[in-house]
């Protein structure tokens, strides 16, 4: 344990001084990039892989569970992770940082927002949205069979940020109960079904996401977030999520040594909200395969990524 920690720190320090040292050639062994189960992440994996290949590196892709992947990065079975979301993965990521063997490679330009969200047509069913008070006033149209007369808010899996949701509902004395979906797929299925029926729903969602395109929808506006307002941080809990969450990159601690060139590039890689949205749209809306979408993105945005080399 201690040993790994030491090495991780050493590597992190080493990477800071990287610009100064003479870059040694990258290893020809493949850089392992994980693919999870949502579009932007998979497409981005192929985009980053394409960039690495353009400087002559070998790349391989491995499907992985998005929570379990950090353990594999620590062990060196996976080299990088390029979409570490603040509210969903910070726990797994921080656990891995504590255990050592993984390094934080900075954030993307894109900020993220994660909050209660409703599709556009729900705005007509409940006038006064996006304010949370208006939402609370029409709680009854959000009721379901299991919610006992209260409105139901469909949250992501319990381990993403479940306690915070419960705290907030209690602190704001809302007429809502939270139900925890088991996976993001369950959220989208509920959204799709509700849209067919013109039924009111409010679910956990984030941006950038594929829901940004199409008919869209909006985030519910809660009392503004201030540092320390959450119950877990000692506040009264009467606040929404931070409006600008981070989207990080992570790498195995030996990447700077083994693939110095690629590591330098990965350090520079920084996608904007628009980039992520475009990558997802090529697949979700234009129906391309993930690989083809990545190839197209690389072709269309050469100026962007050539600047990172």
């Amino acid at each position, binding site marked *: 344990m201690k040993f790994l920690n030491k090495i991780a720190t050493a590597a992190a320090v080493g990477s800071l001084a990287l610009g100064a040292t003479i870059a040694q050639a990258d290893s020809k062994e493949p850089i392992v990039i994980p693919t999870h189960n949502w579009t932007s992440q998979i497409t981005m994996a192929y985009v980053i892989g394409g960039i690495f290949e353009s400087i002559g590196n070998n790349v391989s892709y491995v499907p992985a569970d998005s929570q379990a992947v950090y*353990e594999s990065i620590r*062990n060196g079975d996976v080299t990088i992770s390029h979409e570490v979301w603040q509210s969903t993965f910070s726990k797994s990521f921080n*656990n891995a940082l504590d255990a050592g063997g993984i390094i934080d490679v900075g954030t993307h330009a894109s900020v993220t927002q994660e909050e209660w969200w409703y599709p556009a047509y729900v705005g007509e069913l409940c006038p006064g949205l996006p304010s949370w008070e208006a939402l609370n006033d029409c709680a009854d149209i959000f009721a379901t069979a299991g919610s006992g007369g209260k409105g139901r808010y469909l949250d992501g899996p319990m381990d993403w940020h479940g306690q915070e949701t419960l705290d907030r509902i209690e602190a704001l004395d809302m007429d809502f109960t939270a139900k925890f979906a088991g996976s993001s797929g369950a959220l989208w299925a509920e959204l799709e079904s509700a849209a067919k029926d013109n039924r009111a729903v409010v679910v956990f969602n984030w941006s950038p996401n594929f829901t940004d395109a199409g008919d869209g929808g909006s985030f519910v506006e809660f009392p503004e977030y201030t540092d320390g307002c959450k119950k877990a941080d000692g506040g009264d809990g009467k606040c929404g999520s931070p409006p600008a969450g981070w989207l990080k990159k992570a790498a195995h601690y030996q990447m700077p040594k083994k693939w110095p060139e690629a590591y330098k590039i990965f350090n520079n890689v920084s996608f904007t909200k628009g980039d992520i949205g475009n990558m997802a749209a090529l697949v979700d809306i234009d129906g391309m395969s993930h690989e083809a979408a990545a190839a197209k993105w690389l072709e269309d945005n050469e100026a962007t990524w050539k600047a990172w080399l």
Partner: protein
Amino acid sequence: MQYFIKHKWAQFAVLLAVFYVLATVIDPATGGNWWRIQETRFWLLPDVVNNALRFLIDDFWVVDVYDSELDITEESTVVKEFTRTVSGVVLFSINLIRELLLGGVKTVVAFTSWEFISEHKWARIPALPWPAVAAGAFIVGHCLGGRNLSVLAGASTIYIAVFGQWTPAMQTLSFVLVAVPISCFLGLMLGAIAYKSKAFETILAPLLNVAQSMPHFAYLIPVVIFFGIGDHAGAISTVIFATPPMIRLTLLGLKKVPPEVLEAGTMSGCNSRQLMFRVLIPSARHDILIGVNQVIMQCLAMAVIASFIGAKGLGYELLVSLNMLKIGQALELGVSIVLIAVVLDRLSLAWANKQADYLADLPFHLRHKHSLAFLGILIFTSVIAYVASMVFPDKVNYLYFIDEAQGFSTEKFWDVMVDWLITNTYQGVQGFNFFMITSVLMPMKEAFLSMPVAATLFLVAGTGYIVGGLRSAVIVTAFIAFIALTPWWDRALITAYMATFAVVVSVIIGCSMGILCSRSPRATRVILLVCDTFQTFPSFVYLIPVIMLFGVSDLSVLIAVIVYATIPATRYTVEGLTNVPQALQDAGSMSGVNRLQRLLKIELPLAFPHIMLGINQTVIFALFMIIIGAFIGTDDLGQLIMQSLSEANGMGQGIILGLCVAFIGLAVDHLIHTWAEQRKQVLGIA
């Protein structure tokens, strides 16, 4: 008193009455340990297990390993080096098969280096043209099982290619072609050792039980930490899951070999190895083949779950398309998984049943006609593919490889179907949905959650005692007491409530369907085929449509569970009823019973022990699917198992939670098995 001792149902009624009294007397507020066992040092068990495994992989027997590329010496442990070597061998085998089918460089790298590959672009294995593989499947089918089999194998391969699923299907196939032989080999060896050594069998039995009833998600993280992530990790977790039925059936088959056969072998002067491989295993072939069939089914059933830890192929594509709500695409991928399972199963069966023709003395070209034909087709298709790519360099070469985007698809049709179903039935099912949730499921959940630990343990112990005497009472109480000692008693009660509801409904549906279908031989064949199909069809596919109809609720989970758990109930009922000896049925008919009487008085009682084993399987299937139901959203043990993927002590927590689920299954399993054995003794069909 005499009456009471003789009639078990009377004992059971008293037991229930006492349970009820205990449950009302023990008050949640003041009940203390009687109500829920308070925190003890036992709660540290997940941490202990986690730290022990960590120690094993990180700190036990440290050795120095030199990394030639980075020119540094690193610390590693013997365990880690060993597991990584195993991984390497498995991964090499998978890549070898995969690259023969799809092309690639990793096999060449294994003998050279990545530098060599980067410099020499020609050093790669080219992909086989798909028509060559299809022809190969056709020839293998013909060679092993004649015309029907060749058509099945060839047509399935063509389906997969034409529907644009070639790459993922071959990835899955290469992974299965490694996992199946390993599982079969291990199963056969361990089964044979257990046959020879009673002590080994006694040690093995509980391990097998746990491996079979443990939810897969519970051991994903340990596999990732010990073996790494990738196709090999998927294959290794599949082997853990698929080997137990092979061991069991091997042992069962060997035990059934009549002593006469054994003696004949000994008299012919066999040594013990010859006796095993030339006499015992061939004689036990029937059961061993059922084992192989089970291994193949289990391996493909794992295809989706294995993709969580790096297995590429159909399972992963299926998860991605489900997450994008492309149900049609997921359905097609599911069909490919079923096809691969069916073809492999039939081929292996035909191969094992094929008799070697020792007398034939044929010339070379006749003896090797199948290999020669394949060679011819391979050259022919390769030339065609090559010429086509020369003549039309810019066009897609359909004769060589069909990409996902160029393949056929019935996806639109299925999507429209699902769409129609949801728009038109949504309103209709809401009444049912509301009624079920508010009037049945929520009260039932409440009732289960109000069960005090002491009363529940008393009920379990009493049931064990009535069914199987003191020994059973001790065993089942130990299982349930383990759960009571963990912090997750409430969670386990919710799992138990869902399992109870799902099992009751599944058994009612499955048994009625089984009874109806067993009346005609044709219906029997059809229903068994349906059972086979649904068993390998990835159950993940049902999850999204049920959410669309019933929302994220326990009802959705239960419907998905019932669809899956009805399979064994149906299958065992059909098998049980069709296996009732003809002589007994004729005897009944001669005594003048009508068809209904014959069913009620002769067939059902005789088939009952077998049907009970089906109910046993229903429980295991239901528990398995309830854990997968965590993807919809549950608040039981399954939710915690999913959460353990992101916990710091996830390895230990996952394993202990998995054991809790397994122990619920094993307690039920023990009771049903004991009872069915007794019935068999009574009926004289043991």
